């Protein structure tokens, strides 16, 4: 953003030739209705779906080129994934993805890139597991305490990046990337020096086990952990916070037009800190499904790379609560088919490839569609109004 004072009035959106007014699908979708919000949501959903399709096409080509049959692969994925127990697995895998995506999305809403989710969640997992193993109280309270500790720990780690950005102007992308690796180091050191439970022998080292009162129960015959509902609750809270609250309004305003937000009195420094703290708090919960539901400690079983997967899910879900749920479900669906693919002789790493390509296609498709849709909306609104009021003379002249 240049700091030059504006010397020209803002340019008018150029008038484009109006397309044939006969009903085309796109036209009906882009006609301004009394509720443009739903209409835009539908288009966004459509563009995300289109992006996934394109990604699948590209991956299919990659499969074919390397001698694997794409159709068989996709068929197998569909067949396996839609079975009922696999669907539960899909939800199970989607749980941490939803949490990660929400953490990232909060930052995105303010044009902040919190790549540090990766380090924040691992750090929080260690701290929470260690604290949770120290005592035993009434189960719901125990679990709640662990969750809160995890959120605070994640928040603190994110706070380092926030302070660096606001006080020293350090770009949050670089800072959080560095902090991710520092987190790995610190975690390793803490684990080795203090927190490893050496009373248990074997290769699978972890921290002291959390007593049963701190376990998150499994449901549906052990297929789905109750953290799933916690994740849903977090997504709902995200929706309320970002789209309904005053803070959320200011957050989005800062992201949509930082200059206008500042002019309107919204303090950008404070918003950055609060946004990153909340993002870190949510990030802290990402490993809780595995820590509270599976391993009941911190150890090698805690999945890595969930931070980056969350970025992918947030992008595919367009930072929208419903989108995040759907995108997480899709990724979970894909992940759940990995075993079956392997059995079929198709390397299951193709799933990661598909997910990576989705990240790019969804951003590209969304940008193209949004720009085209904006143009149409502007044109049609103008046309609609012109029919009512003929264009009057304009007062000022551009220099």
């Amino acid at each position: 953003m240049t700091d030059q004072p504006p010397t020209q009035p803002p340019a008018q959106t150029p008038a484009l030739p109006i397309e044939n007014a006969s009903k085309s699908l796109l036209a009906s979708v882009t006609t301004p209705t009394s509720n443009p919000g739903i209409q835009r949501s539908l288009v966004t959903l459509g563009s995300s779906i289109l992006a996934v399709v394109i990604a699948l096409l590209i991956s299919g080509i990659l499969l074919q080129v390397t001698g694997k049959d794409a159709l068989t692969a996709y068929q197998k994925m569909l067949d396996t994934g839609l079975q009922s127990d696999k669907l539960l697995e899909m939800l199970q895998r989607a749980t941490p993805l939803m949490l990660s995506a929400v953490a990232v999305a909060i930052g995105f809403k303010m044009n902040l890139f919190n790549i540090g989710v990766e380090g924040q969640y691992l750090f929080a997992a260690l701290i929470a597991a260690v604290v949770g193993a120290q005592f035993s109280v009434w189960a719901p309270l125990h679990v709640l305490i662990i969750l809160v500790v995890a959120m605070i720990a994640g928040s603190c780690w994110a706070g380092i990046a926030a302070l660096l950005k606001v006080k020293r102007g350090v770009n949050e992308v670089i800072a959080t990337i560095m902090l991710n690796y520092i987190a790995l180091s610190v975690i390793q050191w803490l684990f080795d020096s203090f927190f490893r439970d050496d009373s248990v022998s074997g290769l699978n080292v972890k921290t002291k086990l959390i007593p049963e009162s701190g376990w998150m129960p499994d449901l549906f015959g052990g297929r789905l952990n109750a953290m799933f509902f916690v994740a849903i609750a977090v997504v709902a809270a995200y929706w309320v916070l970002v789209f309904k609250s005053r803070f959320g309004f200011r957050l989005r305003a800062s992201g949509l037009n930082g200059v206008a937000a500042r002019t309107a009195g919204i303090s950008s420094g404070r918003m950055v800190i609060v946004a990153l703290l909340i993002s870190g708090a949510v990030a802290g919960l990402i490993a809780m499904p595995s820590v509270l539901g599976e391993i009941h400690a911190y150890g090698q079983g805690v999945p890595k790379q969930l931070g980056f997967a969350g970025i992918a899910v947030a992008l595919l879900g367009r930072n929208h609560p419903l989108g995040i749920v759907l995108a997480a479900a899709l990724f979970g669906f894909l992940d759940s088919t990995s075993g079956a693919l392997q059995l079929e002789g198709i390397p299951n790493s193709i799933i990661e490839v598909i997910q990576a390509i989705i990240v790019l296609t969804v951003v590209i498709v969304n940008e193209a569609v949004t720009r085209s849709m904006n143009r149409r909306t502007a044109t049609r609104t103008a046309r609609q109004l012109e029919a009512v009021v003929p264009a009057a003379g304009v007062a000022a002249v551009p220099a």
Partner: protein
Amino acid sequence: MTNDDIAVELVGIEKRFPGVIANHDVSLTVRRGTIHAIVGENGAGKSTLMKTLYGMHQPEAGTITVNGVEQHFKSPSDAIAAGIGMVHQHFMLADNLTVLENIILGSEPNRRGVLKLDDARRRISELAAASGTHVDLDAPVSELGVGQRQRVEILKVLFRGARILILDEPTAVLVPQEVDELFGNLHRLVADGATIIFISHKLDEVLAVSDEITVIRQGTTVTSVLPDAVTRSTLAELMVGSELPSPEGRESVVGSTVRLSVRGLTVPKAGQRNPVEDVSFDVHEAEVVGIAGVEGNGQYELCEAILGLTPVSAGTIELAGEDVTHASTRHRKAAGVSYIPFDRHREGLMLDSPLWENALLGREHEAEFAKGPMIDTRAAKKDCREVIERFGVLTPSESVPAFALSGGNQQKLVVGRELSAQPHILLAAHPTRGVDIGAQAAIWSELRHARDRGLAVLLISADLDELIGLSDTILVMYDGHITAQLDPATATPEMLGTYMTGGGMTGGGGEHTAEVLP
């Protein structure tokens, strides 16, 4: 004057933009080896004309003749090939590259890709000597002051063989010493055979340095004069026109409470002259104080300072007696300041958001819209609908995204929003820019009513109709100073034009000495 002597001739130039005629039947004759000034107010069409000459856009009608040959420039490259070079008002320099690198970029002397820096240095030194400039070729541009950067821009065009230089408001950001140096350079260049066209609204300078002056007003040429044959007052009158709207006769309702008080305000800006220098004025309850002046004389920075968006280096700002010089923007807004911004897209709207969210911006903390920490969406939408109706914003609904509205309607929404906040003080920067005549009248009416009910308004505008029609008193801003205070009922175009273009600064010139408020 034979045709051989004419470097540039424009005849009958016509340039239109959607909804607007920027240049109409403009003619210009520039003799070779002279400094030719083009003067006019903002929006008069001078920059558009020069951009046409430089090939940045094509005219709808008219001819361009350079050195006797008719030209049809499709792009600046064509103009450069014809020997024309343009130095823009906002420099295009790479801060971290050296002066030398900036000058040769894109036209680098090289042998098969390897830079021949010695050749470049030699050529540039020759050019620098010819124009009397001295620059350290190896200094990064970031270390240069504004005057030196301008010299680099001039060397850039000279390096590409320009013999006709166009300078757009070259002294806008220079201190007097740098202005003298610049004019010295220009004289040297002209002595060397170059032709200089420059755009300005600063009549003192124009009269001091140019060989011929062309006045443009409302998109068309008024006349061309020789500086010896004209006084500043006549020139100012030519620029501004000989008729001013007469203000409505009305009772002054100006109250006695001072709502906004500014004393000795100085606003700094890195690397250049202070945009606001020692400004003092008061705005009372139920008063409209108009600030007249060509855009770019510090009005924007003044507003930023009053809002708290930019730090001040000296002076105080008081809102109803409370010193807010170092208070946050939020605090000042809560104290009752509203702002209709200069650039609604950049400073006022979230284009992708629905209108009702835009209407809420800056007002989300008001009790009316708050349901605890939540936003009462229904109340916000209802309020937006009221604004839409009251200010005649043409839109199918309050949920339409802001970008879908025309500029005029966006402006109406912004004006409506700021007035609906029931402010005590309103900073209004050309509030009716881009708005159709009917709506303009409506907005003026709203402003007058608000004023009558006690609103204090600081109105910044280049539209004399607006200024004269609305203001209770008019201050003129030039080069960051307040140079005059005028009564709209008795102000003449000559007076306004004089003060807007630099008269009253040095003490000589106008019969009306600047009497600024205590």
